[in-house]
């Protein structure tokens, strides 16, 4: 019900929302939880295991019960805490984990069976017969378990990421946080003040305390207003700092648009902030904890502080008649606030025999609540009085206070161990906090408002002093400074079920069973009973469970220890963590210089790492990719083709010692390479395995350009820098990656020279004698454009690679096509490139997979023994030099029209399909239009000695089995006459 007066809501405006199919009205300033309570809705959800009816327990992010599915469609958001949802017009929420309806939930049968469904019961049964687990038991369990649901439709909203820097990050904007921010802000420090709530002020909004003789909430609003005027202070409401990471980095999620029906145009739903702080002050407050008693989970039974918060901040009460059950003075404060707002408090049931009196209601000292009644909502509680007599109180709500736990979450993220504080009967942050982190206010166990203000100011001053700034102590506004008075009391003795973890349905009986079975270590207790493993990470549950276990083992709570809170402090949407990196923007896309031209030619593109490369260029009338590829291959070999090879890595190597450096990087000799010449180079890892291959072109005595494979461009450059800086720091050599600086095109085919002659400016001798195979030069093309020309060939044809500064790449491909038209120049893509390299037996990705040696590739003799190069020593180990090792071979199907699948395994003819018969595998396969046959490359044990043998190539995975003949891997022009022409 909505109270007559008060509340930080806009009573002038009504907004409508829908819950469980019913329409309701609320006000701006409401949360979904407060609005439901205002509409007398106490039943908001069902528990995880027993499907017990549940209402809201708390008023903040620690809420375990009131979880709803918010919104619909792709925006459906399961497990949303009603206490954290700002009401907006048109809000839709559905209860979850209930079927067919919230009021009549079929699985509530579990509650009747609870005696069989004790902690860990599933470890002891469902074992017979074995196949029934997956077929029967598990599907039933899975359907019953889980909480909310998602539609799996794509989330239509966007997310963003940002980076912030500050001197002091203040986490939590209650009295401690506000005072800390004021102190640091007034001193000129760069401050970020973040709070998970949409309204800053923390408990000041939920209490009737005064500060400096004004209402606490007003003081908070005034402080916020002052802070908002400071340009170096950033206020971040709706922003949850969820994790403390290394070196002062904090993760935070700002709920930018969650309080709106849909995000405004151009705005994200949420933003993930990475906050780089020099110092951080955790002012995260404290969380009230319940007391366990029989049936203490009915809708209407709440934390006393929550009852107080709903009344003060939102002017609602779940019922007109309420009672309070407490073991400490704050329960009395809750009762007083409720009474001040016109709620009838039937009694304060205080476990302490010496409980103080309270004006306006009866205090039942030394009494305990022993049971509750009411099927879908609280109707009455049974109280055992101090004198042993029993009394029934008819109330619609019960506020329970078992004391307050400092909100430890963030202080544990870097393995800080909490300490037990006897005075407040709670864990406080330990001494080993993350570097740069400090704690103030209730989060460190200082519960009075005055102490919060004082420790907040002090925390800010200490942080700034640490950074070298002396800040005067502020005049603290006057505030209450009541001592913490609590007599620990954890649970009411009894035989009925009493809940510790509401969401996961962990009761005292479960803890007792865990103890009985030896699961006494706190981590065993947690894992066996699932205590504290729900979506609230046990914020209200853990300590009660530990206290019960401590009682059972006869140890103190301090000896029993506590489980660690892990990030995130509250659950974080995956969308926010991913930011903009989803869909097509998952990773950047690198485009080649000829990309736009290729798109104009209707090229089909393929991913090559982050690159998009033209895969083939279909022409009108071609209905299958093979037609295009065969045409490209044949045209290239018959006349001339052109291919963008920019993606190959390029490293410029300069310096007096460039040759010596490369001589150590490559396993074959590079020292004596003549200027103007290119050499194939094989690079090993230090473990002797082939790392990469490419070419090294010597443009000058002290200048090389080396190429890498597309895939290894980055790792090879890194490796070369490692060698340069760490292994041989005094070699005179400089490296720069020029992969993106040069657009490079391969011109291949017998007419490539003729095309090139039309590009290269006059005076350069392109004749076979003047510019032979493996020559290189810096040339001028197209009337003065500087270029690099390499006569190298991957296709096996007479071929060149021509490089120009990347900005001319697009112009060059168009020019090449223009001047090559007379020769019917054909652009070819990666497929044709692959076919031609297989026809030539050149190794590529399938062969250079990080496990092959030079010897495997038939290049064993390239590993020089005359010098010390990277990988040479370990390449000689017995396991890598075994004579019966894998060797690269060519494979031709006995039936030329049978495709040999890459990935097929090779066995002796007729050998059974078992691993013992495995002789090797197929690494690459294609149809060779030149040979009119499918062909393949593969590794076969002792392959070179098996030329001509017929093997079984089997791919049982894809249902292929055929006979193949071992041949040389050099299918096409094995003598290499064409490329030297």
């Amino acid at each position, binding site marked *: 019900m909505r109270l007559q007066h008060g509340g930080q809501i806009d009573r002038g405006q009504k907004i409508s929302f829908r819950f469980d199919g019913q329409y309701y009205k609320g006000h701006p300033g409401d949360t979904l939880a407060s609005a439901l309570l205002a509409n007398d809705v106490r039943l908001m959800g069902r528990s995880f295991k027993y499907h017990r009816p549940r209402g809201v327990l708390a008023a903040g992010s620690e809420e375990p019960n009131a979880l709803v599915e918010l919104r619909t469609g792709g925006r459906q958001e399961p497990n949303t805490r009603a206490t954290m949802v700002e009401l907006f017009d048109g809000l839709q929420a559905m209860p979850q984990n209930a079927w067919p309806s919230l009021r009549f939930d079929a699985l509530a049968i579990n509650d009747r069976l609870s005696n069989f469904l004790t902690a860990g019961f599933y470890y002891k049964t469902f074992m017979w017969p074995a196949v029934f687990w997956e077929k029967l038991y598990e599907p039933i369990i899975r359907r019953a378990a889980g909480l909310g649901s998602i539609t799996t439709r794509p989330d239509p909203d966007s997310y963003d990421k940002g980076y912030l820097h500050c001197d002091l990050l203040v986490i939590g904007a209650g009295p401690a946080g506000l005072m800390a921010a004021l102190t640091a802000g007034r001193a000129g420090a760069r401050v970020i003040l973040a709070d998970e709530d949409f309204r800053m002020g923390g408990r000041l909004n939920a209490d009737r305390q005064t500060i400096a003789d004004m209402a606490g909430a007003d003081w908070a609003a005034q402080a916020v207003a002052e802070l908002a005027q400071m340009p170096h202070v950033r206020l971040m409401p709706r922003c949850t700092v969820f994790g403390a990471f*290394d070196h002062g980095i904090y993760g935070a999620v700002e709920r930018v648009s969650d309080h709106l029906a849909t995000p405004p145009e151009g705005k994200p739903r949420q933003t993930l902030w990475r906050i780089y702080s020099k110092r951080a002050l955790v002012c995260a407050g404290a969380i009230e904890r319940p007391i366990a008693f029989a049936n203490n989970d009915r809708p209407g039974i709440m934390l006393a502080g929550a009852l107080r918060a709903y009344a003060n901040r939102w002017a609602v009460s779940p019922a007109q008649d309420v009672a309070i059950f407490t073991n400490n003075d704050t329960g009395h404060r809750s009762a007083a606030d409720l009474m001040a707002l016109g709620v009838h408090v039937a009694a304060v049931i205080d476990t302490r025999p010496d409980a103080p009196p309270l004006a306006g209601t009866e205090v039942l000292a030394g009494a305990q609540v022993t049971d509750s009644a009411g099927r879908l909502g609280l109707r009455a509680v049974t109280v055992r009085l101090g004198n042993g007599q029993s009394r029934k109180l008819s109330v619609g709500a019960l506020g329970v206070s078992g004391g307050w736990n400092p909100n430890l979450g963030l202080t544990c993220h870097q393995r800080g161990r909490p300490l037990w504080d006897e005075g407040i009967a709670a864990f406080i942050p330990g001494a080993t906090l993350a570097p740069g982190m400090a704690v103030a206010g209730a989060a460190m166990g200082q519960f009075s408002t005055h102490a919060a203000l004082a420790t907040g100011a002090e925390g800010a001053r200490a942080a700034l002093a640490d950074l070298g700034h002396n800040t005067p102590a502020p005049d603290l506004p006057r505030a209450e400074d009541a001592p913490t008075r609590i007599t620990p009391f954890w649970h009411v003795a009894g035989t009925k079920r009493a809940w510790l973890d509401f969401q996961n349905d962990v009761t005292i009986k479960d803890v007792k069973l865990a103890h009985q079975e030896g699961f006494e270590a706190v981590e065993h207790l947690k894992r066996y009973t699932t205590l504290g493993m729900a979506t609230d990470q046990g914020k209200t549950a853990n300590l009660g469970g530990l206290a019960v276990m401590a009682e059972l083992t006869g140890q103190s709570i301090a000896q029993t220890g506590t489980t660690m809170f892990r990030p995130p402090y509250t659950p974080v949407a995956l969308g926010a963590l991913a930011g903009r990196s989803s869909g097509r923007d998952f990773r950047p896309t690198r485009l080649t210089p000829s990309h736009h031209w290729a798109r104009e030619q209707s090229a089909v593109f393929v991913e090559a790492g982050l690159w998009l490369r033209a895969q083939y260029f279909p022409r009108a009338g071609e209905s299958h990719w093979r037609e295009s590829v065969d045409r490209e291959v044949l045209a290239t070999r018959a006349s001339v083709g052109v291919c963008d090879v920019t993606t190959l890595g390029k490293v410029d190597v300069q310096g007096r010692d460039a040759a010596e450096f490369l001589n150590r990087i490559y396993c074959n000799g590079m020292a004596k390479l003549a200027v103007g010449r290119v050499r194939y180079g094989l690079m090993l890892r230090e473990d002797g395995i082939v790392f990469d291959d490419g070419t090294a072109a010597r443009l000058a005595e002290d200048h090389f350009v080396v190429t890498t494979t597309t895939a290894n461009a980055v790792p090879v450059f890194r490796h070369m820098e*490692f060698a340069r800086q*760490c292994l*041989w*720091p005094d070699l005179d050599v400089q490296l720069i990656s020029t992969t993106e600086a040069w657009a490079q095109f391969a011109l291949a085919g017998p007419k490539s020279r003729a095309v090139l002659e039309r590009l290269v400016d006059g005076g350069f001798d392109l004749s076979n004698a003047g510019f032979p195979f493996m020559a290189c030069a810096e040339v001028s093309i197209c009337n003065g454009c500087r270029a690099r020309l390499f006569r190298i060939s991957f296709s096996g044809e007479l071929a060149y690679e021509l490089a120009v500064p990347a900005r001319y790449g697009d112009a060059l491909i168009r020019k090449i096509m223009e001047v090559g038209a007379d020769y019917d120049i054909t652009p070819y893509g990666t497929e044709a490139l692959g076919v031609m390299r297989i026809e030539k037996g050149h190794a590529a990705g399938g062969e250079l997979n990080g496990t092959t040696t030079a010897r495997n590739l038939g290049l064993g003799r390239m590993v020089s023994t005359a010098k010390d190069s990277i990988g040479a020593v370990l390449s000689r180990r017995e396991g890598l030099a075994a004579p019966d090792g894998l060797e690269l071979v060519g494979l031709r199907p006995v039936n030329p029209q049978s495709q040999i699948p890459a990935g097929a395994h090779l066995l002796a003819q007729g050998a059974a399909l078992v691993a013992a018969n495995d002789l090797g595998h197929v690494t690459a396969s294609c149809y060779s239009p030149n040979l009119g046959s499918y062909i393949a490359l593969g590794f076969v044990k002792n392959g070179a000695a098996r030329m001509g043998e017929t093997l079984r190539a089997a791919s049982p995975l894809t249902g292929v089995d055929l006979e193949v003949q071992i041949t040389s891997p050099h299918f096409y022009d094995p003598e290499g006459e064409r490329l030297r022409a």
Partner: protein
Amino acid sequence: MIIPHPLLGPCDAQEFTYLGDASLIARPDGMAEGAADAFHDYLYLRDNPAGLHRELWYHEQGDRSWLVVTRNTLTHEIVKAELARDVARAEGRGR
């Protein structure tokens, strides 16, 4: 993590690529007697300490410096960051 780059100041560790123990600087002489054993130990065996660890980071998204970072593997605290080239020279590596 934040790596205090000796030339550039504090940089997010995300800009760096990690290699491993800085002992990888001490590459044996491949032409020396017993090189096979020396390379085995060099490449494969690690102290793997729980505590201070000298390790190689490469500023791949930055200035391409290789750094030797001294970092506590129990706490991630970084106590020192040096240019690997300087360390290599100090350890007697040259040409």
